[in-house]
């Protein structure tokens, strides 16, 4: 029971963190038709900037400033690196984001070293929020979840309640038609790209302190975020939300799976046969927690590429 409850809360919070990154990716795809391979890099930049700034201006200041810097970088990238690629077609845009992701990873390695940096929340944020089954649940995790919820509420309010939100939603659905109606689609793209980068930056700034901050973090999270947007349906915000929570739960519960393939085979009396496969049979399934989302993405891409909520291809 304790495992179930704690895993459920952890899964929900991880899912919300994923959504902060995935929402920007899926919005940008809907609008520009570009899958931004560098999107998870914004998450990484958010964490590293916050780490560097926290030493100079304090944790709270860093949480505000770092994502803004990331958003600015996002805007500059869209304006000066992605937009010129547009006339060469989708493949060039894809390649550019791929190259950027590679470059950002190497840049962080060069500047901060090829190891995990000690980015942690300050002492005054380290206290238990509540106690369940005798286990203290850290407040900071709830803070990560709350940040995501507030962000989602703001995003929802902007998209549903304002005129700009209306135009953005129109542009996600039918970019050329929106442009034909006289809206400045270029500025809109740039703004959305910046907004997505900013949200990923927020996720990095708060999440980097609670997960790890290393040059590999973009790659690790990037794969999961791709899974989220594919499962949810590329371009669908609601799909991204549902898929984020789903993947969050899956990841959280998979870590607790201590049975192995050999144990499962043992149920039908084939334990020895399974053991001959080597360590893959005897290691607990939790070791493959990383493979489950990727497998899920492959299945969705093969069987239903539109995802849960996406438009039919």
């Amino acid at each position, binding site marked *: 029971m304790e495992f179930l409850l704690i895993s459920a809360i952890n899964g929900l919070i991880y899912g919300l963190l994923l959504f902060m990154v995935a929402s920007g990716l899926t919005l940008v795809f809907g609008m520009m038709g570009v*899958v931004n*391979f560098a999107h998870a890099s914004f998450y990484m930049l958010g964490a590293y900037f916050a780490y560097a700034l926290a030493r100079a201006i304090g944790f709270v200041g860093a949480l505000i400033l770092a994502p803004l810097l990331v958003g600015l970088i996002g805007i500059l990238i869209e304006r000066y*690196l992605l937009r*010129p*690629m547009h006339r*060469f077609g*989708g*493949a*060039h845009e*894809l*390649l*550019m984001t*791929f*190259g*950027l992701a*590679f*470059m950002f990873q*190497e*840049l962080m*390695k*060069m*500047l*901060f*070293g090829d190891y995990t940096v000690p980015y942690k929340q300050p002492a005054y944020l380290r206290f238990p929020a509540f106690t369940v089954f005798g286990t203290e649940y850290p407040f900071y995790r709830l803070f990560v979840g709350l940040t995501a919820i507030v962000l989602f509420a703001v995003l929802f309010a902007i998209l549903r309640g304002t005129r700009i939100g209306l135009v953005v939603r129109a542009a996600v659905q039918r970019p050329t038609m929106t442009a034909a109606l006289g809206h400045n689609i270029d500025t809109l793209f740039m703004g959305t790209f910046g907004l997505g980068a900013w949200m990923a930056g927020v996720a990095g700034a708060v999440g980097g302190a609670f997960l790890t901050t290393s040059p590999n973090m973009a*790659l690790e999270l990037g*794969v999961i975020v*791709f899974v989220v947007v*594919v499962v949810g349906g*590329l371009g669908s915000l609601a799909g991204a939300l549902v898929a984020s929570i789903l993947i969050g739960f899956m990841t959280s519960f998979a870590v607790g799976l201590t049975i192995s393939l050999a144990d499962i085979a043992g149920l039908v009396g084939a334990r020895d046969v399974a053991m001959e*496969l*080597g*360590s*893959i049979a005897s*290691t607990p399934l939790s*070791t*493959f927690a*990383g*493979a489950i989302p*990727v*497998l899920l*993405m*492959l299945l969705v*891409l*093969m069987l239903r*590429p539109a995802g849960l909520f996406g438009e039919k291809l």
Partner: protein
Amino acid sequence: MTEGSLPTSPVRLLAGERGGWSRRGLVLYFALAAGAVLLMLLPALASDAALGAVDRAMIAAVFALAFNLLAGQAGMLSFGHAAYFAVGAFATVHAMIAIEHSRLWLPTPLVPLAGGVGGFLFAGVAGFFATKRSGVYFAMVTLAIAELLHTLAPNLEGLFGGEAGLSSFRQPFMGVSFGKEMQVYYLTVGWTAASVVLLWAYTHSLFGRLTLACRETEKRLPSLGFNVHHTKILIFAISGLFSGLAGGLLAFSTESANYELFQSSVSAMVVLQTFIGGTGLFLGPALGAFFLTLFGRVASDLTRSWLLYQGLLFIVVMVLAPHGVGRWMVDEAEALAGGGRAALRLACILAAVLVAATGVVMLAELSHTLLSRDYEAIVTRTASYPPIPLFGRSWDPASPLTWLAPLALFATAALLAIIGRRFGQARA
């Protein structure tokens, strides 16, 4: 050239299918011949370490050509090509182990072929699934397949030897021990030459035309009686064959294979090198991969930021010469024939690139040293910022002059670029 007829001269293919029997064709032939002679004579001139570096560069070139067959010629962008490279490497090590235990008879020079067969078979299966999708979705399927293997491989001991990987020994064959660097080197030269010729012939063939058609007018193919899915699977598998052969050559050279070959940086490297070289020319990707790998070897002794520079180079090439350095060089060579203004323009651009690159390297190396752990330790111990040695002199990090120098270099580069632009465009 009329519709449907094949290009008659190989040089035309080499020069992007639009040149004729010109001076440029002769220059290309001459350059190719000179390169081949140099590769053959290298063991007499260079050390074993240098031979090893050129060996790796040739392997990267074969891998890039195989990748370009799919990404450049067929227009299917794969972000997980490490999978077929690594499968080829493991297949080769398995073949070497089998030979060692006399379970298999295969002449040693043909061992890398096992990698080709492994790559072909695996890419055939993976390609069946991947080519059902196109564009972004295709890219993500390939990425997912490679990522899946990378996660599973360390736990599959029988196939991939777990985290430690597999290793074996090259067996002597017909009096050749294959124990010397030079013997391995010549085998790589042979297989590289064979791959280049075969892939060249492939581009030349009707199926090569069909490959281009997959990129250009996929929708028309069914009406011409072709099964698009089957065609794409075959293209994917052939690309996997040569990728696997490249992986096999690496495994043959190092006598081992490790699950790290599956990691995304291997896939990223071939993408970067191929598109820096340029996909429009047949040899563009090969030359790009060859020289970048070679430079990487040389530069890794001098700097730890080589991969960053390669990433930056990729982005610069994508913005300034989106069709790759190879295509750019051909265009510039054509413009040069036009006269003196073009030469002045080219000189300005090259100078601008050189000056800007110096600025980037200076900025990067200074920040790298300044932020490194060793330097931080010195600062906390001595409470001062010691000067950083670079380009043969030392730079005081507290002095504004140190940081103005790269800025001045960037300004100079910008000025040179503006002057260069005054001399007109390459393609008038």
